[in-house]
């Protein structure tokens, strides 16, 4: 069975540095997803260059099925040697996995990855191999629905050293922490962000080392269809709506006119709940048979803001959506639940909206930006303009 591969990461910069010395690269190639977390020697610009080169080289080569030996040889030959320290050095963790949850993991000098299965943190079995004089550990992966792999740079296990903790945050304690926050519905990003936030707390907001947490989660696919705006050709409403409702695991309708058309097609009333759960977001509607009914442009604008925040690699706010207003409910359904998102964008112009900050150009722009952000989250997105 084909599963969905969800990933996400969060970085803390060494206190006072503008650049992070850790770098995460991600690539999709055919059936495989490759994620590389590299940590360059030192901090700041130098570390950033080392980790950028390492992650980019490894990610590109591994995703194209080049053997690990060749990858490492290329890497060693390419990395610039540090003038002061006389070495070229960057640690790395590589996860290469397909849609059946099978693949492998390579680790070099990063803290050992944590495997979460059924809410329990486990260690993967690893085998030492020596490549180009480096000891690299290899593990075979066979992940099941809702399994996570959490990888981290050493900033995580050093969190709090000399400040809040004597010896930093030991890996065993990190495992306990992950078990305590684990919920099987959390996204990879949510797990990564939550762990990074705790590291930041232990560092008392002043990380003594670049810290990056990158997570991968394997789960079942879920296809969401979202209708935004009524189609231009009114005579074909029925065709458009039947296509919108077909083959979707969940359906969302955004916009007043669109809701009216869908309700008419389904022969059901629209109920509107007058509770204002957020002052910026208009209330939601309810149509039997549709999972979510919201207002259009204003809700989407708020959703776009939420998506920027969700994608930010430095934002530490929790990546779970608990509030019940229209935009937050959309975020939960699209960012967390969905694996595939199909937009059905109607381009009919609402004459009454022209000249207001809610007109059609605004709507199309919002949809486009939103679709791009969903792609950055790893979702499979299609846009259908009617």
């Amino acid at each position, binding site marked *: 069975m084909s599963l969905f591969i969800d990933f996400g990461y969060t970085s803390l910069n060494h206190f006072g540095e503008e650049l992070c010395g850790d770098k995460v690269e991600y690539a999709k190639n055919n059936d495989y997803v490759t994620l590389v977390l590299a940590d360059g020697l030192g901090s700041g610009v130098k570390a950033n260059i080392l980790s950028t080169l390492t992650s980019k080289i490894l990610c590109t080569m591994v995703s194209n099925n080049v053997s690990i030996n060749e990858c490492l040889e290329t890497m060693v030959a390419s990395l610039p040697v540090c003038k002061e320290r006389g070495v070229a050095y960057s640690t790395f963790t590589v996860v290469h996995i397909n849609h059946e949850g099978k693949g492998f993991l390579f680790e070099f000098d990063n803290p050992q990855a944590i495997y979460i299965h059924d809410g329990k943190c486990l260690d993967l079995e690893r085998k030492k191999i020596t490549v180009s004089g480096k000891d690299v550990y290899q593990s075979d992966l066979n992940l099941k629905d809702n399994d996570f792999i959490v990888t981290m740079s050493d900033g995580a296990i050093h969190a709090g050293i000399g400040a809040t903790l004597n010896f930093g945050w030991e890996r065993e304690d990190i495992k306990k922490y992950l078990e305590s926050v684990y919920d099987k519905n959390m996204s990879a990003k949510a797990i990564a962000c939550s762990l990074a936030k705790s590291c930041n707390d232990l560092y008392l907001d002043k990380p003594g080392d670049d810290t990056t947490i990158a997570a991968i989660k394997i789960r079942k696919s879920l296809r969401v269809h979202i209708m935004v705006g009524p189609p231009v050709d009114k005579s074909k409403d029925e065709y458009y709506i039947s296509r919108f409702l077909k083959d979707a695991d969940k359906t969302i309708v955004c*916009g*007043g*006119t669109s*809701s*009216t058309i869908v309700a008419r097609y389904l022969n059901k009333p*629209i109920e*509107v*709940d*007058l509770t*204002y759960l957020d*002052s910026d977001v*208009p*209330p939601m*509607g309810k149509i039997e048979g549709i999972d979510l009914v919201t*207002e*259009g*442009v*204003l809700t989407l604008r708020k959703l776009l803001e939420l998506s920027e925040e969700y994608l930010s690699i430095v934002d530490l706010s929790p990546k779970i959506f608990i509030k019940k207003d229209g935009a937050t409910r959309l975020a939960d359904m699209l960012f967390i639940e969905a694996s595939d998102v199909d937009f059905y964008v109607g381009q009919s112009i*609402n004459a*009454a*909206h022209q000249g*207001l*900050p*809610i007109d059609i150009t605004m709507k199309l722009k919002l949809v486009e930006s939103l679709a791009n952000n969903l792609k950055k989250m790893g979702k499979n997105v299609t846009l259908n303009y009617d």
Partner: protein
Amino acid sequence: MVKVTVCIGSSCHLKGSRQVVEELQYLIKENNVGDEVNLAGAFCMGKCQEKGVNVTVDGQHYSILPEEVKQFFNDKILTKIK
């Protein structure tokens, strides 16, 4: 029972439907007429060009600004009850 529907579509939202809804909810409570007024919301009524927020009272259409709500409530809603 008087049925009052307030449009909460995008355009009316920008014109202040939230204030209208909240003030109506407050006035209904203050006048103790919760059993006689059924306040509901509706998506776009197709009259976005009106100057204010679209509201219907038993099907009769009005366009009101947030600052006119109290007057509107006294004139068009309370009179229907008494």
